[in-house]
C-alpha cells in the first residue's frame, strides 16, 4: 500500500438494540473494526447505550480482580469454549454475586493485612529489643515521662532517615541509635520536652511509627521471649485459619468464578464500543473503520449471527475526516522490520505516502553501496538466519542488507576485501574515488528530489497548498534547487551558467522571498531579517543535504581501505598469525563497520528523507478484540 490507509472504509451498522452485544462480539472476533466515537448520529440516536452496563462490568471486574488477588489465579480459559453474549440480567446476577463474594472474603483480606502488619511490628520489636539488649540501655527509663527529656523509640522508612536526621538536628534533636533491615530503620530520638510539638510534627511527616516496649522487658527476659513467641504463634494460627477458610470458599465457588470471568470477557467488546454505538428506543447503530477487504466477511458474519434485520453502509473517508482515519501499520514478511523502523519515527497519516517500501528499497541500496562485499554480505545473511529466533522480524532486515551487500560486492568485485578473485561487474571503488563521489552525489540529488516530490504530494493531499508550493521542500524550492544544480553542473563542465537556470533561480527565489515576507507579521526590521534567513535556510538545506550523501561513497571507500589495512597487517605475520589476523580483521570490519553503516543509512533515511516528507502523526489502527482489552482498564 503506497498511500497509507487507502483501503479503509467508514461503516455504519444500523440494527436493533438487543443485537448490539452480539454484533460487537462478532466484530471483535474478526479483529477488523476500530470504533469511531464521534457523535455523527447524535441527532437521530441521542443515547449512548450500555453506560450502566459499562459501569456494572467495571465494578464486576473490580471485585473479580480483588478476589483473584486474594484467592489465587484461576486456570486459563479453554480456547475452544464458545463465547456467549452476556445479557443484562446475567450481568446483574454476576455483578451481585461477585459483590457478595467480595463481601464474604473482604474481612479475611483485612484480617490478613492486619496480621501482616502485626508480624512486621513484632519483628521490629524483637529486633529493637536485641539492639537495646546489646547496648545495655534501661528501656523502662527511656519510656518513662521525664520533666525535660523527650525520648521516642520507633521505626521510619529507610529513605527518610537522612533527611529526618538533618531536620531534627536543626531543631536540636538527636537520633541516638539506628539499626534496621530491609526498608525500615529502628531509631531512638531524643530532644527537649518543651519541643515535643515540633518533634511530633516532623516525625509524623517522616512516617515514624512508635514501638511499644513490653513492661516485662527489664525484669524478666525469659518471660518476654515467651510472650513474643506466643504472640507470633497466635498470629500464625490466625493466618492459617484464614487461608483455610479462603481455600474452602474457593473450592465451593470455583465454577461460578470461572463462569463470571468467561461472561465478563465476552462482554468486553460491547463495553469498549463506548460512543461508537448509539441508540434510540429499540433502534441502534454502531460506526467505525474497517479495511475494505473485510467488508464481505463482516456482512456475512452479521447475517449469520444476528436474528433481527440490520443494514450495513460503507463509504470512503470524507476529506474532512482524513486526520481521523486510523491506518493499519502492521506489515508482514520482508517489510515488517522496516515498518517497525518507520513506526519508530511515526505512524503515516491517512492518505500520506507510506514510506515503508521506499525505505526498505533505499535502505538496502545504500547499505549495499556502502558495504559492498560478497563475503561480508554472506556472513550477515548467515548471522541473521542463525539468530532468527532472537531477531524475529529483523531477520529479514539482515537477509536483505546482506543480499544487497553481496550484490554490490559483485558489482565492486570484492570478496572478504580481496579484489582480484573476481572481476567487478561495475567498478572497484578505489579505482576511481571521484567517480564514486559523483555517483553518491547524484544518488543524493535523486533521493532529495523524490523526497520533495512526495512532500509536495503529501501536502496537497492534506490540503496544504501553500506548503506544497512555497514551504521547505515545496515545488518552488525544488525548482530553485534543480536550477541551481543544473547551472553548477554546467559551470563544472566549463560552460556558462545557463540562462534558463538563471531565470528559474531568480523567479523562484523571488517567489520564496515574497511568501516568507507575507507569512511574517513581525516588525519591519525583524521581518527583513527573518525573510532572508528563512529563504537562505531553504536553499542551504538542499545543498547541505546533497553533500550529506557523499558519505555513501566515502563508506564504500572506507570499506576497501579497512580491508587493505587488515591484509597489510596480516601479511606482516607468520602463517598462523596471518590467518588469525584475517579472521579477526574481517570480523572487526563486519561488526564495527556494519553497525556504523547501518546507523548512517538510518540517519540518511530519517533526517534527509522522513523529516522532509513524512508527517508521521497518524492514528494507528487498533481494532476491537475479544477478551479483556488493555483499553478498558488503562485510562
Amino acid at each position, binding site marked *: 500500500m503506497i498511500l497509507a490507509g487507502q483501503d479503509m472504509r467508514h461503516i455504519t451498522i444500523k440494527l436493533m438494540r438487543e443485537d448490539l452485544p452480539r454484533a460487537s462480539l462478532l466484530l471483535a472476533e474478526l479483529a477488523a473494526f476500530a470504533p469511531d466515537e464521534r457523535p455523527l448520529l447524535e441527532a437521530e440516536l441521542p443515547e449512548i447505550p450500555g453506560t450502566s452496563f459499562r459501569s456494572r462490568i467495571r465494578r464486576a471486574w473490580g471485585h473479580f480482580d480483588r478476589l483473584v488477588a486474594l484467592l489465587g489465579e484461576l486456570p486459563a480459559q479453554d480456547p475452544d469454549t464458545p463465547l456467549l453474549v452476556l445479557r443484562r440480567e446475567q450481568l446483574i446476577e454476576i455483578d451481585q454475586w461477585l459483590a457478595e463474594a467480595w463481601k464474604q472474603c473482604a474481612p479475611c483480606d483485612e484480617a490478613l493485612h492486619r496480621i501482616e502488619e502485626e508480624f512486621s511490628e513484632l519483628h521490629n520489636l524483637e529486633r529493637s529489643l536485641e539492639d537495646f539488649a546489646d547496648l545495655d540501655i534501661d528501656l523502662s527509663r527511656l519510656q518513662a515521662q521525664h520533666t525535660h527529656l523527650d525520648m521516642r523509640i520507633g521505626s521510619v522508612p529507610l529513605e527518610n532517615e537522612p533527611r529526618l536526621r538533618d*531536620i531534627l538536628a536543626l531543631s536540636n534533636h538527636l537520633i541516638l541509635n539506628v539499626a534496621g533491615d530491609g526498608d525500615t530503620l529502628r531509631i531512638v530520638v531524643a530532644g527537649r520536652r518543651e519541643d515535643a510539638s515540633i518533634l511530633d510534627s516532623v516525625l509524623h511527616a517522616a512516617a515514624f511509627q512508635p514501638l511499644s516496649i513490653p513492661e516485662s522487658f527489664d525484669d524478666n527476659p525469659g518471660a518476654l521471649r515467651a510472650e513474643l513467641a506466643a504472640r507470633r504463634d497466635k498470629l500464625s494460627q490466625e493466618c492459617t485459619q484464614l487461608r483455610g477458610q479462603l481455600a474452602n470458599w474457593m473450592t465451593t465457588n470455583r465454577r461460578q468464578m470461572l463462569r463470571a470471568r468467561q461472561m465478563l470477557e465476552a462482554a468486553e467488546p460491547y463495553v469498549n464500543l463506548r460512543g461508537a454505538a448509539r441508540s434510540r428506543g429499540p433502534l441502534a447503530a454502531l460506526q467505525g473503520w474497517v479495511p475494505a477487504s473485510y467488508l464481505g466477511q463482516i456482512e456475512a458474519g452479521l447475517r449469520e449471527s444476528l436474528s433481527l434485520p440490520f443494514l450495513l453502509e460503507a463509504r470512503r473517508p470524507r476529506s474532512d475526516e482524513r486526520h481521523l482515519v486510523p491506518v493499519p501499520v502492521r506489515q508482514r514478511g520482508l517489510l515488517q522490520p522496516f515498518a517497525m523502523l518507520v513506526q519508530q519515527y511515526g505512524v503515516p497519516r491517512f492518505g500520506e505516502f507510506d514510506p515503508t517500501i521506499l525505505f526498505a528499497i533505499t535502505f538496502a541500496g545504500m547499505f549495499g553501496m556502502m558495504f559492498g562485499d560478497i563475503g561480508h554480505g554472506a556472513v550477515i545473511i548467515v548471522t541473521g538466519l542463525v539468530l532468527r529466533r532472537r531477531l524475529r522480524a529483523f531477520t529479514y532486515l539482515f537477509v536483505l542488507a546482506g543480499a544487497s551487500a553481496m550484490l554490490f560486492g559483485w558489482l565492486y568485485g570484492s570478496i572478504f576485501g580481496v579484489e582480484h578473485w573476481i572481476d567487478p561487474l561495475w567498478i572497484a571503488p578505489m579505482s576511481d574515488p571521484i567517480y564514486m563521489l559523483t555517483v553518491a552525489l547524484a544518488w543524493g540529488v535523486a533521493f532529495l528530489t523524490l523526497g520533495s516530490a512526495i512532500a509536495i504530494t503529501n501536502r496537497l493531499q492534506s490540503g496544504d497548498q501553500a506548503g506544497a508550493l512555497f514551504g521547505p521542500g515545496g515545488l518552488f524550492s525544488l525548482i530553485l534547487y534543480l536550477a541551481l544544480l543544473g547551472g553548477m553542473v554546467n559551470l563544472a563542465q566549463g560552460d556558462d551558467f545557463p540562462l534558463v537556470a538563471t531565470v528559474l533561480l531568480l523567479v523562484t527565489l523571488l517567489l520564496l522571498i515574497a511568501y516568507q515576507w507575507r507569512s511574517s507579521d513581525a516588525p519591519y526590521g525583524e521581518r527583513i531579517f527573518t525573510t532572508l534567513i528563512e529563504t537562505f535556510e531553504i536553499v542551504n538545506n538542499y545543498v547541505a543535504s546533497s553533500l550529506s550523501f557523499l558519505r555513501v561513497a566515502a563508506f564504500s571507500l572506507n570499506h576497501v581501505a579497512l580491508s587493505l589495512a587488515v591484509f597489510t597487517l596480516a601479511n606482516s605475520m607468520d602463517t598462523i598469525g596471518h590467518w588469525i589476523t584475517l579472521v579477526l580483521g574481517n570480523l572487526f570490519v563486519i561488526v564495527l563497520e556494519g553497525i556504523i553503516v547501518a546507523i548512517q543509512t538510518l540517519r540518511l533515511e530519517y533526517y534527509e528523507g522522513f523529516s522532509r516528507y513524512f508527517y508521521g502523526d497518524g492514528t494507528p489502527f487498533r481494532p476491537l478484540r475479544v477478551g479483556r482489552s488493555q483499553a478498558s482498564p488503562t485510562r
Partner: protein
Amino acid sequence: MNKLANQAYLRTRLAIMRANLLGREKLAALAQMPLDELAKHTGFDAVTAGNDATRLAAFERALMQTWLDELSALLRPLAGPARRLLTQWASRYELLNIKALVRGKIGQLPNEQIEQSLFELPGFLSLDHERLLNTDSIPELLRQLQKTRYRRLATQALRQYEERPDPFLLDATLDQQFYSDLSHRAQQLEGDDRTETLDLIGRFVDRHNLVWSLRYRFNYGLQPSEVLYLAIDGGRVLNRSLLQQMLQADTLGDALRQLPKNLLSHREMPEEITLIEAAMRDDLFNHAQRAMLRSPSALSSVLAYLVLRHGEITSLYSIVHARVRGLGDDVLAQALDPLQEAAA
C-alpha cells in the same frame, strides 16, 4: 541511534513543534474572544457531547493528551538517563491522578465521578487506574499502590494515614518524591545535558519550595521543622539553610526579607503568596523560553519546550473554562496574569 543523531532528531522535532506555541500575545487575544470564536480557535467546538462540565473535562483531557502525545514523539529516539528523565517528567500526570483518586476516595465520590478527573496516560506510563479506582477505602487504595512503582511512597503514606489522615501530607510527599526522582535522574546525565537540565529543574524546585513553604508556614500554621522536612532538595538558589532562615521569621514580610535578591531576575519579590507564585512562574517561563531557543543541550531545550507548552495548555484551558462559566474579563485577566492586574 548515536548521540549526534539523537540531537538532530530532537532539534528537528522541536523546530516543528515550536510552531505549536502560541505566545503571550496570541493567548491574550484568545482571552478577548467571545466563546463561539474562542471555541473555533481552540478546538473546544469539537467537543460536543454532554453538559458544560463534561465538555470542559473532555477538553482538558484532550489538551493534556496533545501534550503527552508530543512528549511521546520526543521520547522516541531517547534511551538511558535522558529517556528516564523525560518519562519521569510525564509521570507528573500519574501523580495528579493519584492525588485525584485519594481526594475522591476521601470525599467518597462515586467511581465515575472520580474517573472524570483522571488523565489518560500514554503507554510508557504504567499506573493501572482501574485497579486503584476499584477500592473501597484509602488504606486499600494505598495497598494497591504498593504494588506499583510507588511502593515506597504508598508504604509511607499508609503509615502516615493510619496514624493521622492528612491529605495535604500525601500531596507533599508525592511532590517531594517526584522532584527528588527528577533531580536524581538529571544527575545521571552528562555534560551540557546535566548542567542545563539541573538548572531548569532547580528553578522548578525553587518555585515549589518557596510557594509551598510559605503556604504551609503562614497559611496552614505548620512548624518550621515540618515545613523544612517537606521541602524538596535540589533548588537552584534556595538551599535548606536559606529556607530555614526564611521559615524562622514570624511574618510573611519578615520571611520575604530573608530571601536572596537573585531569586527573581527582573523584578522585586511581591508580598502576596499568589503574586509570588505568579512571579516565580513568569521567571521560570522566561528562562524556559531562552533555554528552548539557545540551550546547548537538546534535551534541556525539549524539557523547556514541554514546560512552556504545558503552561500554555493550562492557560488555554483557563480561558475556555472562564468563558464557558461566564466569568468576567477582570476575573480572567486576574487568573491569567495576576502580576499585571496587581500592578494596574
